[in-house]
């Protein structure tokens, strides 16, 4: 299953019926050194585009939005404990949450990697 991206620089990747969600390496680089991550509570239900998490660098605080609707079934406590991990491996180990989607069809509206890279180029 390929990775899908939003225009707000979140990514989502299917993994055994749930979607692993994080922020793109490009977003992490733009933020600079991440010093704080606030994650949602497990069990919370979000609609696509809702505020899902907060990530802060020395410079600024940024909201992370839910790329798809669904229920939060897991959060990555490791990045709350060690926010710098987001800069090290945003696309991999520093995932934010796992979402059980209410409508997996929403993924179709997101960009694939090639489209996202082009979007970032033109941003």
């Amino acid at each position, binding site marked *: 299953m390929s990775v899908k991206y939003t225009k707000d620089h979140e990514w989502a990747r299917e993994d055994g019926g749930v979607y692993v969600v994080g922020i793109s390496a490009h977003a992490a680089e733009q933020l*600079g*050194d991440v*010093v*704080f991550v*606030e994650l949602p509570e497990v069990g919370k239900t979000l609609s696509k585009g809702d505020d899902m998490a*907060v990530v*802060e*660098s*020395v*410079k600024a*605080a940024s909201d992370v939005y839910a790329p798809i609707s669904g229920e939060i079934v897991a959060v990555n406590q490791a990045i709350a404990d060690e*926010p710098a991990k987001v800069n090290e491996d945003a696309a991999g180990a520093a995932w934010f949450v796992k979402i059980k989607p209410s409508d997996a069809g929403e993924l179709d509206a997101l960009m694939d990697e090639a489209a996202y890279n082009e979007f970032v180029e033109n941003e």
Partner: protein
Amino acid sequence: MVEFAGYEMPVQFPLGVMKEHLHTREKAGLFDVSHMGQAVIVGADHETAARAIETLVPGEIQKLGVGRQRLTVLLNDEGGILDDLMVSRPATDGRLNIVVNGACKHADYAYLDARLPEHVRLERFDNRGLLALQGPKASDVLAKHAPAAADLKFMTFAELQIGDITAVVTRGGYTGEDGFEISTWDEDTEKLAKLLLDDPDVEPIGLGARDSLRLEAGMCLYGHDLNPAISPVEGNIAFTIGKRRREEGGFVGAERILRELAEGPSRLRVGILPEGRAPAREGAEIQSTDGKTIGIVTSGGFGPTAGRPVAMGYVDTDHAQTGTEVHLIVRGKALPAQIADMPFAPHNYYRGQGAGK
């Protein structure tokens, strides 16, 4: 790049805010602060110029020694702060150099033009640049090109040759570290920047780290921590008010300021340490632990040297004591925090051999 005070300025260089901040505290950082306003107030003699500016600032300027610089504030008629500024005395004649904030300079100049007496005039140095070299290695770096720089004491200045560049070098800055602010003619500023950046201990530093460094140092950013409604007593910068001036008054807004000095202000700028990891930023409401609004955060973020979030803001004076527990409202949640002493990272100024730090 961002727009700041009408200039395009870098938030950060490739090193990034965090590493730029830490590099400045460890070695030396170079800041281009040429957006700041440099000008000179000229009277027939020192007393004439000093008396004129003393009607608008509460600092002791008449007794300012040659080669010395002082921080004070430009006041409105209500004793509120229009800007914070450096005043320095270059010679025994009637000149007083000033350095004002870039974002305020046009308003400051208009105010000074309108309020200085006719026999005292303001001349702008719109053709001078300003570089700040800050950090524990700043003195070693600058002394390679201008040995006399190493002997300057905190808040003194001299005209020095840096290689073939003539510069006015002042010891001080806006980071809490030892360092210099270096004023040159425009055509020499870039050349000086390149010369200093050639040193392996020096990195260029952007606005992001400039802000986090001054915040840790407990210093105010005009327009955020100070504004025209806030007096220097409320702003907790009463050191900008000279001893003689407290007795004599004779500056605009003196009635309020002298009353606040005598009776205490109703609100006060304080340091704030959030207990958790979440930074509280400008605009966050400050509440007492029983949920009453007692103030507002005016600057806040993560302090790279402190290794934790730090903030400053205004609280009602009865909640201003160090150690008072408060709540900061961040994204609708009340985060526990304490009123704390500033600075959050120790100042490290050069006051002369054997004078200690």
